[in-house]
């Protein structure tokens, strides 16, 4: 297990270096000068030079990269060019806001995705299976942006049951029912695609496992259906876990579209702002943190796999 873990860590290091290079360099490919986005038209050349120097934009790109990387390794993601606040101060509340939404989305998508997937697998080619499979395809195919607007139109505008956008006011004394109400529509929207993907992969995997000989043997040995069901789920778990890991990581990474539609101040919303205002330090910092998070989630899934399937450890 130790060798397995070390090997996984060895895979991660070059990925992280690659991620840092991509994060830094790609944002410079976007058209438009990062300074024109924040400088007024009549700014004097001295002021422009002063602000460019303060952010290090007057240096060659490779030097900018190594300075940025050095600062990142010491925990400093730089300063936002638009707000002049530290990127970390901008990012942390956004990560927490996205995490709230993501946890709700994860719960919805796991419960619904696994439940519906198993149900479909056990009702193969019957009406329930066809309905679930069709719903899963719709869930994966329909743009969440559109789904969000439809949900808002029905539940917020027409029925007036739930808020249309934003988070609950911060002064309502801890996390409560009001916070949940604000979360319902964006969380449902966010969970649509992962629910569809998880449901389809769970259905396929469970059906695949059920066809295997050991399941027939268990039936032949007279095990109860409940016990056989548990064996099937256990054998289906490793491949489902890998897909779920990716989906959960994506949810925690935030969704630009969903967070923008619901004006939810999370990482997706932050990224959208950073792109629109050419706030390069904020953009680089946010992408880097999210990419690292994604890599680490996959690493954790890789580590969890051998516990569910000892064959991976032996390989």
């Amino acid at each position, binding site marked *: 297990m130790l060798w397995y873990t070390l090997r996984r860590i060895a895979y991660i290091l070059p990925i992280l270096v690659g991620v840092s290079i991509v994060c830094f360099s790609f944002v410079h490919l*976007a*058209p*438009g*000068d990062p300074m*024109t*986005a924040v*400088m*007024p*038209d*009549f*700014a*004097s050349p001295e*002021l422009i030079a*002063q*602000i460019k120097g303060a952010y290090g934009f007057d240096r060659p790109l490779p030097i900018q990269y190594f300075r940025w990387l050095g600062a990142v390794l010491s925990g400093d993601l730089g300063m936002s060019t*638009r*707000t*002049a*606040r530290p990127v970390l101060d*901008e990012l942390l*509340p956004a990560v927490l806001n996205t995490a709230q939404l993501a946890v709700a989305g994860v719960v919805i998508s796991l419960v619904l995705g696994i439940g519906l997937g198993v*149900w479909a697998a*056990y*009702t*193969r080619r*019957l009406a*329930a299976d066809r309905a679930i499979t069709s719903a899963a395809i719709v869930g994966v195919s329909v743009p969440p942006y559109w789904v969000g*607007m439809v949900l*808002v*139109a029905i539940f*917020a*505008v027409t*029925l*007036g*049951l*739930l*808020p*249309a*956008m*934003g988070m609950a*006011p*911060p*002064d309502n004394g801890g996390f409560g*029912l009001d916070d949940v*109400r604000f979360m*319902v529509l964006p969380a449902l929207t966010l969970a649509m695609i992962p629910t569809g993907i998880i449901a389809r992969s769970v259905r396929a995997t469970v059906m695949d496992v059920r066809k295997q000989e050991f399941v027939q043997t268990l039936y032949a040995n007279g095990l109860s*259906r*409940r016990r056989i*069901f548990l064996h099937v789920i256990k054998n289906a778990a490793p491949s489902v876990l890998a897909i779920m890991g990716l989906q959960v990581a994506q949810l925690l990474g935030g969704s630009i579209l969903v967070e*923008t539609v*619901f*004006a939810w*101040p999370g990482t997706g*919303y*932050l990224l*959208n*702002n950073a792109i*629109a*205002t*050419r706030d390069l330090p904020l953009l680089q910092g946010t992408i880097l943190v999210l990419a690292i998070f994604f890599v680490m989630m996959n690493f954790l899934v890789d580590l969890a796999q051998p516990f569910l399937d000892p064959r991976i450890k032996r390989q």
Partner: protein
Amino acid sequence: MPSSFQKKSPSFRSANLQSRTADAGGTVAADALQRRLFLKLMLAGAGSLAWPYRLGHAQTKETVLRVGMTLSDIPLTTGQADGGAEGVRLINRSLYDALLSWDLSRADRPSGLIPNLAESWSVDDTQKVWRFKLRRGVKYHDGSLFTAHDVVWNFDKLIKPEAPQYDRSQARNAANWLVMVSGARAVDDFTLEITTKEPAGTLLYDLVNICMSSPRQWEKLGRDWKKFAFEPSGTGPWKLASLVPRNRAELVRNSEYWNKKQIPQTNRMVLRPMPDATTRVAALLSGQVDFVEALPPDAVPQVKASGMQVYTNVYPHIWPYMLNHMPDSPFKDIRIRKAANLAIDRDKLVKLLRGLAVPAKGMVIPDHPWFGKPTFNIKYDPDAARKLLAEAGYGPKNPVKVKFLMSTAGSGQMQPLSMNEFIQENMRDVGIDVSLESMDWEALRSRRMAGAHSPLNKGIHGINYSLTIQYPIFGIVGQTFHGKNRVAGYNWGNFADPDADELAAKSLREFDIDAQNKRIGELHAYLVDQAIWIFVVHDMNPLGLASHLKGFVQAQSWFQDLTRIRIE
């Protein structure tokens, strides 16, 4: 509790119960009783979440004005807001005061300058030294008294990098307004002198944007502008109660505001960033906000049909194509510039925009004091356009080929895609073959700042970039600056004309407002006669207000007075 969830629940439950009989390879063992219990719990939970949102918020006694902003973040709250006109409108004008202000009390005329923290002013014989008599008895939110020394301190905050209170962010946001200022001096506690680098008759328009932050509060907070942003102190009609970046700002009424006529009529104002237009409309229709900016034209009928109020008014905005006047541009020829102006069916374009625009006759509307008396009548006349093109050597078989830059969205750009495509068709009809290159707003802004002469803009003959005409330099006078006097972004196409230069210089040396308006009108008329741009439409600034808001007056301005709104 009755809810839509519960009404639908029987069919949902029966569908679940029926499904358990379907099984190809065995069923998942499930107890129908347990499932019913589970469903009941689920429905009860959903029902409690779905307690009508509007009802819950209608019970508060405090009057709260909730505003849906178009910005994606709360603008900087330290004194010089970012976020363009909206930052000034909602933060600067709420928390702070400047020496002068805009008269926003009338909807039927363009808003002009009025005294504010400065009660009167004069300029000396050199025309470079201005003396201001300041208002007495004005207090900051922290209780300290406003004096001339504070104005000097605030100018140093913006123009003196060696001053301890110098703030790079605020200096950046205020840079537009400090070009002419060389320094400020307190003659006594309530007399101030401002010196300009050269005679600048338009200085008062700059000062309207320089806001006064409290030096005492800054000292109290350990000379830290970041802390000041969360606990600001100005002299404005509202005080900041709380700030959650990118989420909300809550402002409370300043009951001791010096201008008793502008003490807010509501107890509290909440600002919510909502950059997505659909989100703003949904928030208004669902009762989550009471006032939204920049209603999209398509949403106006629905907003009206739901009993909400839609306000529109002209304001100093122009949606033009700034033209390339460089020697290799077809628009160097005034006949082609005029033909392009005559090719557009603006009335149809306004219909396309559901009436939320006004056909342009120049940079400003004809009622504006800066309009003057142009002789070139901008209208739809395709025959005249074809004739001018023929005189210039072009025709249907030999069209003028030009390329314009446009954005996909952006501040004041209205509906850029459909508008540009409509105009492209109009131009093709008379013999101007327009190709469009679209990009996002900030990329377009970069291209504008670079100017037509930049290698970045090689082969580009026009840029569709909307502009404020609220200030003389921004809107009109700056469009003539060229050569070493050119300011980034203004006079994009390098228009250079000695007659225009002379008229611009006269405007800047005029210190009486009426006489200055006349001079600017002469310059504007000349620029229209030269067809310096393709003038298309002025936006009507549609605002959505909940039906219970009363007392709002939509001024002909980029700024609005929200203090007079009351909730009934």
